[in-house]
């Protein structure tokens, strides 16, 4: 008997896991989500005279060309050089699979054996010798959900996140997810034959960042793009983040024992993830955990955070995941897809380590000036203007008796105040001050300044006492000193 994961859940609920383990041969899983670590190896064949392509574009999307003359790897997050965020490698793959014509452009330095230096032509998938989808990381077992504690909308690879915990987004098919159905990595391995992008593919090993001990396994997969369908490979855009590819994957789980049967019957309310705060721009595993929830809660459309009911919605398609599990079931019953025994199972003892940074990350402390010239709210505008000119500065924090920050004025504010004949600093200062903490990364604060279109921030401690000032000038000076040329 072959059942989809949803049918397996029902059977175990009604008949128990022992019965299901005996009666069911295979459970089919499915997922359809954005999988950024995907791409395709393409072989274009030789032109006459031939070219050793050192740079190559398909519809203006650059390929990786550190390979032989006419081989290339098209990664799905590569951006079009003319259309930016609206079109990328994932879209080229979708268009190729749909049979559309694609513009190929390539350049070279020319060699004795490959004299041609330039080529521009139009191709379709039929013109390619090989078009192999080869995805280094697909099918995350689970994925942490996302929310946003800050007071502004943020645009992330987890979609649009509204301010003040305005919404929650999540990804993954939960109870239909292939690696959730083989929770202990007992059946899937190198050589497992799968549904991939509407065609037949194979698992070729663990995916990058495979983290089995924590229950965040991943897969590396491969399949012939020429057999696939564009319906199951869709280019995607995450607004102000970048481009990707939605990949459809379905994996058959042979029910080899009761333990596998019970994993294959895991329900959404038994699969948990953390909701993390994407408003804090730290390493993914350090993003603060807001709540631990099940896929059932996430999929219900609403999760309670504190006192508030927060709307939640997925980024991956449960509907498509379900379709894929149904198609895979049909394929198995029609013997269109024959099950394989893996040559080797997935490793169960890998760790996903963060990147070690040898050079210390520049923090605000390293670039800020600690001798801060400040003003009082009662100060006269003209005196303050004089002070700015004398000291050659543009930003003047306004503090109270305890040196707590209460406002800021810039030379522009003062110019305007004098033009409008305003006298007191308190009347013209900006009260809602954008600040920085001394342990924050320069990159984070530089981004904050750019976002608010300002050129300096007072540095404060936890009790809002002013301890320094940081301007864009300070940052550029520090970067030149440190030999860094980019922010």
């Amino acid at each position, binding site marked *: 008997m072959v059942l989809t994961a949803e049918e397996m859940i029902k059977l175990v609920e009604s008949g128990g896991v022992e019965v299901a383990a005996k009666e069911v041969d295979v459970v089919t899983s499915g997922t359809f989500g954005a999988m950024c670590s995907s791409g395709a190896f393409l072989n274009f064949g030789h032109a006459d005279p031939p070219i050793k392509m050192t740079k190559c574009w398909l519809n203006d999307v650059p390929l990786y060309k550190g390979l032989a003359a006419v081989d290339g790897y098209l990664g799905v997050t590569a951006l079009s050089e003319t259309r930016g965020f609206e079109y990328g490698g994932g879209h080229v793959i979708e268009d190729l699979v749909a049979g559309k014509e694609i513009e190929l452009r390539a350049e070279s330095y020319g060699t004795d054996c490959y004299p041609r230096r330039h080529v521009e032509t139009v191709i379709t998938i039929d013109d390619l010798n090989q078009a192999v989808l080869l995805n280094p990381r697909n099918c995350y077992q689970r994925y942490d959900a996302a929310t946003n504690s800050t007071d502004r909308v943020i645009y992330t690879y987890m979609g649009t996140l509204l301010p003040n915990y305005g919404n929650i987004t999540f990804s993954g098919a939960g109870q239909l997810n292939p690696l959730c159905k083989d929770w202990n990595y007992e059946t899937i391995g190198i050589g497992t034959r799968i549904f991939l992008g509407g065609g037949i593919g194979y698992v070729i090993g663990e995916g990058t960042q495979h983290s089995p001990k924590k229950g965040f396994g991943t897969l590396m997969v491969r399949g012939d793009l020429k057999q696939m369908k564009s319906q199951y490979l869709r280019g995607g855009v995450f607004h102000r983040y970048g481009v990707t590819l939605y990949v459809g994957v379905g994996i058959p789980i042979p029910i080899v024992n009761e333990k596998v049967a019970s994993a294959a019957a895991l329900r959404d309310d038994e699969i948990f993830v953390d909701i993390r705060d994407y408003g804090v721009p730290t390493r993914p595993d350090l993003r603060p955990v807001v709540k631990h929830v099940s896929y059932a809660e996430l999929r219900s459309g609403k999760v309670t955070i504190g006192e508030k009911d927060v709307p939640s919605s997925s*980024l991956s398609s449960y509907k498509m995941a379900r379709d894929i599990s149904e198609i895979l079931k049909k394929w198995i019953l029609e013997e269109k897809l024959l099950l394989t025994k893996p040559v080797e199972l997935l490793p169960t003892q890998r760790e996903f380590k963060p990147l070690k940074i040898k050079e210390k990350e520049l923090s605000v402390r390293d670039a800020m000036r600690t001798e801060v010239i400040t003003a009082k709210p009662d100060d006269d505008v003209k005196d303050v203007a004089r002070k700015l000119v004398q000291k050659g500065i543009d930003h003047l924090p306004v503090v109270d008796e305890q040196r707590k920050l209460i406002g800021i004025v810039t030379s522009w504010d003062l110019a305007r105040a004098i033009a409008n004949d305003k006298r007191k600093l308190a009347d013209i200062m900006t009260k809602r001050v954008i600040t920085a903490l001394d342990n924050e990364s320069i990159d984070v604060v530089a981004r904050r300044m750019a976002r608010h279109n300002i050129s300096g921030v007072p540095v404060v401690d936890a009790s809002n006492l002013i301890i320094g000032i940081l301007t864009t000038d300070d940052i550029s000076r520090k970067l030149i000193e440190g030999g860094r040329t980019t922010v």
Partner: protein
Amino acid sequence: MRVRLTYSYQVVEKPVLADIILKTGLQINILEAKVNAQKGELVVSIPATGRELEKILAMFKQAEVEVQKFTKTLHIDQESCISCGACISPCPTRALNFGPEWTLEFDEEKCVACRTCVDACPVRAIALP
């Protein structure tokens, strides 16, 4: 009926909406508001139809507030939509939801045409003509 009200700088400081609510006793709901010293733009839902609605719109016009009815609405390309849900939770008025079988559904009455979903859709299946 959803209506966009545009206040020029001459009228932006007048309590036009409050006056009309007091005069008519109608519960006019503010769905969206962008107001600064130069200009104000409100999207409101007026619980009225036909002649009554026209009468209220005329009151706004008389107060020199520009009135624009929401006739255009979202177009969701069902062929292209993958029913992922990326547009659902960012929608500030809950106009998008999953229907039966996890297919995306759109409630036109709730939509304020804010475009959030247009940008949030990964496969660009939503358009606002």
